[in-house]
């Protein structure tokens, strides 16, 4: 799973280097606020271009609203409690599906990494399912499990299982043979070997797999919410707003979707990595 690892590496780098207050300090003269200003500049430029285009009236304002309308929609919907509820329902669905995927995926991956028989039998099945993009399964799931939450959660779980299985499997197989043998020589039994050598040894890969799985789940959840016609959810919000040409609501929803995605990636997983593999010195910060 070399591509998978590389993806996480490049994504992590970009995250690291844009985190506020953490920007690179090339000449030793950049202080906190200057790096913040440098990060803010591109957004100001793009925002200004957007404003000019919107106010020139090239496009109908309904379709291309100025940013203050989007901000107003964001504030209005947040205060009315509509946006938080949509976001909460979406997150709940994401967590349910991802929790399912993490449990099944890590379990299967470890079994495949440890047992030759499990590897031989499961690998063809997993390899057949993996290259099919997750959304393609959506109509099938809807047909089998009906419209609504069950389909949405199962589909999200199903889709994010694949990267988790592959990375866990690779990780368990990548644990250095010499660690296993030295632990055995020092008298570790099967249980301790697993908990104290194999699991920590495979953890960088498992975390990379979880991160990829969550990212995939997040990428398709929006469209799954539309197709499964769930009553609440950010995906439903933006697709529903299309009917009424509420572009400001759609863009406000997209902003929230982006913010949650950024948060999941940078806060949740970075924290998890810092307390485990980075602290153990298995991966550079």
């Amino acid at each position, binding site marked *: 799973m070399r591509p998978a690892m590389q993806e996480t590496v*490049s994504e992590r780098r970009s995250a690291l280097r844009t985190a506020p207050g953490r920007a690179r300090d090339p000449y030793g003269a950049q202080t906190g606020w200057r790096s913040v200003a440098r990060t803010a500049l591109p957004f100001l430029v793009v925002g200004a271009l957007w404003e000019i285009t919107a106010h020139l009236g090239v496009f109908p304002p309904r379709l291309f609203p100025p940013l203050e309308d989007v901000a107003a929609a964001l504030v209005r919907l947040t205060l009315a409690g509509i946006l938080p509820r949509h976001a909460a329902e979406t997150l709940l669905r994401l967590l349910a599906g991802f929790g399912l995927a993490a449990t099944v995926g890590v379990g299967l991956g470890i079994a495949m990494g440890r047992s030759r028989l499990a590897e031989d039998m499961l690998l063809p099945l997993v390899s057949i399912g993996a290259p099919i993009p997750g959304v*393609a399964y959506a109509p099938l799931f809807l047909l089998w499990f009906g419209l609504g939450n069950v389909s949405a959660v199962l589909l999200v779980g199903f889709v994010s299982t694949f990267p988790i299985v592959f990375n866990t499997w690779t990780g368990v197989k990548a644990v250095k043979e010499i660690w296993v043998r030295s632990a055995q020589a020092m008298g570790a039994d099967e249980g301790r070997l697993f908990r104290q050598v194999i699991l920590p040894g495979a953890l960088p890969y498992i975390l990379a797999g979880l991160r990829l799985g969550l990212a995939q789940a997040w990428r398709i959840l929006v*469209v799954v919410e539309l197709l499964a016609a769930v009553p609440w959810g950010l995906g439903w919000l933006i697709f529903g707003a299309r009917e009424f040409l509420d572009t400001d609501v759609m863009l406000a929803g*997209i902003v929230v979707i982006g913010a949650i995605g950024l948060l999941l990636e940078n806060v949740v997983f970075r924290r998890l990595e810092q307390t485990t593999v980075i602290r153990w010195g298995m991966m550079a910060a």
Partner: protein
Amino acid sequence: MSRQRTRSFVRGMLALLAAAAAYEAIARSGLFPRALLPVLPKVAETLLDMLADGSMLRHAFYTLSRLLAGLALAVVIGLPLGILMGRLRAVEGFFLPLVSALMPIPSLAWVPVFILWFGLGDTVAVLVVCYAAMFPMVLNAWSGVRSVNQLWLRAAGAMGADESALFWKVMLPGAAPFIISGLRQAFQRSWIAVVGAEMIASSDWGLGWVIYDAKEFLNADVMLASLAVIGAIGLSFERLVFGALERATVLRWGMVGTANE
């Protein structure tokens, strides 16, 4: 070793057969309606029918042309942008925050906005694919250029390579493993984006559309047949196109170990 591999292969086949048999048994048990859980011969028959009358090929053709158009657009924009970001600090400082902010937004979330702006049809699908493929391209080109061994650059410079030779003969090949892996990821994401976009911004042709449309008529056999085609196309791209690309470049240059096992 070869006995081991034979055994692995036999076990894999047995597992697939067992899965197929289990499916067939459930489908034939009559617990679920035939329309929802068609037996495998029926799926195969549908697949052959659709291949024979050319409709499946036409769906695949439409999907692939949308995908390749979007992917090409993403490469044309993303690759130079990523390389520039890796080379010029000012470009990097400007675009990196934008890329980091836009990347976590799923491409399919833009579908309703794009439909409003560009109407239903091909433009939406192509743009969504382009959006999905752009970020892996940019980020990998950027990391690739930055990870080129400084020693190579200095060695080439010392041997008298000028700026353009340095770029074409050292920088670009040096970044190739990253760029190819970016292309792979871009393709995977494009695949998701094109199928999703076809479902929502429906036109009359396309694999995503045919799967979604089959739901209305409870044609689970059409769905499964289309899924098989989607999987086959994805797999052959991954193995044949990208595999060949890697063998012709980074593997031949000895820059990465054998990729697929």
